[in-house]
């Protein structure tokens, strides 16, 4: 059974503990997939959801979070499109202890659903093992981060999100030492998550003289900046859910102060001098935050609103180059 975790709030370790072929659904981010998805969603859905729907494969089960409105509705559409089934985990927006407990119960409900579908119970030892393996991977990726460019690190995150832990461990073990990064103006990237189709956009930033030293999206540093700690005697499933709730939160949380505290620390710690705030077309949660982000992060900010046709467009290239000029 192929399971696709359609959101970083879905604990992938749980899916893997059930022995499932579980990878994160990161849409291709191509014009073709966006167009194909639009036929399923209508024109007004965000580019990420359209591209995801356009990549729908028969037999998949999509497990996603009720994170933003568009995401949960895209999951419903995926379930109706005939090619996939879907399950939505309730992800609270508030950050209270009660909300955390609600999320723990949601993850327990997911475990029960997986047990029902697979016909086997949760193997707690298997869960512990996969949690340890994924934690090791995240730690390794944090270690190599500083030697990698923004595009290289994003590619690595995309790989980690797709591959089984063992395969990813092999890749990281064989990773050549960094070739040395070209000097550039250090920037933080934030906003919507990025797709493989947008690696070219990272390279566009790099060619313009920007060095993406930090990435606060869930396909950047935020994807590896947490640890699942299982206390002695603690139920591993609860510990896993708690860690996913407590990881640096997404922008959709309310209030989203914790996100900005994280992004601010990340930017300061890596010496970022500016922010590139990129939101995919139709994403309110990221797009509408740009004015707040500029104020709260206190750095020069370039706000880009992009469909996947814009990845290397002249419009975007000109704006990026003008921004880089301003920073020099």
């Amino acid at each position: 059974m192929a399971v696709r975790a359609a959101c970083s709030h879905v604990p992938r370790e749980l899916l893997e503990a059930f022995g499932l072929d579980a990878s994160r659904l990161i849409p291709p981010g191509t014009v073709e997939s966006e167009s194909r998805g639009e036929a399923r969603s209508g024109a007004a859905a965000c580019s990420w959801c359209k591209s995801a729907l356009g990549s729908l494969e028969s037999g998949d089960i999509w497990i996603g979070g009720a994170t933003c409105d568009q995401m949960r509705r895209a999951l419903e559409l995926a379930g109706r499109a005939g090619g996939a089934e879907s399950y939505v985990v309730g992800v609270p927006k508030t950050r209270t202890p009660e909300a955390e407990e609600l999320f723990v119960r949601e993850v327990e409900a997911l475990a029960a659903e997986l047990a029902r579908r697979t016909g086997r119970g949760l193997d707690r030892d298997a869960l512990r093992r996969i949690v340890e393996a994924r934690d090791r991977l995240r730690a390794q990726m944090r270690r190599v981060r500083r030697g990698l460019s923004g595009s290289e690190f994003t590619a690595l995150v995309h790989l980690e999100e797709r591959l089984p832990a063992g395969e990813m461990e092999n890749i990281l073990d064989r990773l050549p030492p960094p070739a040395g990064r070209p000097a550039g103006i250090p920037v933080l990237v934030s906003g919507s998550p990025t797709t493989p189709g947008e690696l070219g956009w990272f390279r566009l930033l790099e060619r313009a003289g920007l060095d993406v030293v930090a990435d606060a999206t869930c396909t950047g540093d935020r994807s590896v900046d947490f640890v699942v700690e299982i206390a002695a005697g603690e139920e591993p499933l609860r510990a896993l859910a708690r860690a996913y709730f407590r990881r640096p939160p997404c922008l959709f949380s309310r209030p989203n102060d914790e996100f900005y505290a994280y992004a601010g620390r990340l930017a300061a710690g890596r010496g970022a001098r500016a922010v590139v705030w990129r939101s995919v077309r139709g994403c309110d949660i990221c797009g509408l935050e740009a004015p707040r982000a500029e104020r709260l992060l206190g750095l020069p900010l370039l706000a880009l609103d992009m469909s996947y046709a814009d990845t290397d467009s002249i419009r975007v290239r000109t704006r990026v180059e003008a921004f880089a000029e301003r920073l020099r």
Partner: protein
Amino acid sequence: MTADRERPGPAKIGYEEWNAAFRRLREDIGRGGGGAPLLDYLDTPRCFVELEGDSRLRRLRFDNSPAALRLWSFLLSENDRLAAARREGKKIVGVLKDLGTAPLLAYAAPDVVAFYPDGAWWIPCLMEMSEGLLRIADAAGLGDEVCPVRATLAAFLNRAHFPIPDLLVAAVGACCDDMSCLMQRLADLDVPLIWWELPYRRDGAGPALVPFVAAELDRVRRAVGDLAGRRITDDMLAATIRKANAVRALLARIRDLSYGATPVPFPALETQICEMLALHFCSDLDECLRVLEDVGDEVEARVAARAGVLPAGACRVVWVNPVADLRVMNLFEDAGGALAGTEYLFRHALDPIREDIAPLEALAEAALRDPMIGTAAYRARLVIDEARRYGAEGVVVSGIPGASHSATEGLVIRQEVERALGLPVLEIVVPPVADAAGGQLAARFEAFFEIIRSRRGHA
């Protein structure tokens, strides 16, 4: 309310006719209840245009009854009522998103009134953009990509429309992205704000969430109690729930009569306003009851007399989503349509709240029936139930430009309605002032009604 003299039969009248009829109507209303004093909020439509700037009234057509005039005056005078409450030292709670639940916590406290600042989404329509709210919102970073609810932020910034609340109560969770972003922007303002979680409801998972939501509402209750300087007890809350249920019972009667009878006894615009009163009672729960009693009596009398405001052959449809431009409801009826059910985003606010369980649990149950926090398929089922109940011949899904839920749910509703009932579905998008789209909308309504009429021929 009864009229002693003979009144003209039910009809829809224009702005000038409405002003001309005002003197007679005002006297009729004044005589209601055995010579009761004239209602202080009752005013001519012209007055609301000239003093409040509600110029859209000039272009609307209204029901000609005293009950409708009272309804309109009650609606349009809300900001005055809120300002008066502030002068009297009452506390004002601004409720965001949840639609119909949290206001009861406020009304349970003495000297507290609640309203929905997000109701500001109608100001650009009512004032025909003359107030500049959407321009202010745009300058503040909420542009055309956001639903017209963005006018709310502008109304907070220019402080020209409603009193700034003493407390904001923001329901976040499985709400639409536009509201979520708007609420985050309001949280930056210098107004105390309490967030509460209105979680996503998987099909069938509502009951398990009741204790959680009840606890969230208890936090809100304590915050409102602190504001009021008095603890809100279960008994106080139970009494408010009983009153809210009286409102909901009246609305059920009005809906059944208006949507189920032929000829249609009461126009779409006015029934929409009636339904909206369920949300926060237009800042006066007791008067809201009296206004709706009036409307109910009027509609009942018309049904008994087989008198209506629309031709008997009007095409009966369920309407989905409120319209940002009120004039579109006129346009819809002028083209030959009639409402046979609605789902204006807040069906849960029309259902009775249980009185046989603890009040907070009852409110939590009610909040968890919110059609917007579950699947679009759930909402489609409400539309289907409504169509069956009132014998609708079609469904109009009125999209809200920029609203995240409107991006995809029309598709699901269409598929479900066609599958379950085989009814035609029309999807439209209505901007805050739809004049430029008027010809296109009229043509689409007419074509849709032609389809419905041709199906009658084949039935």
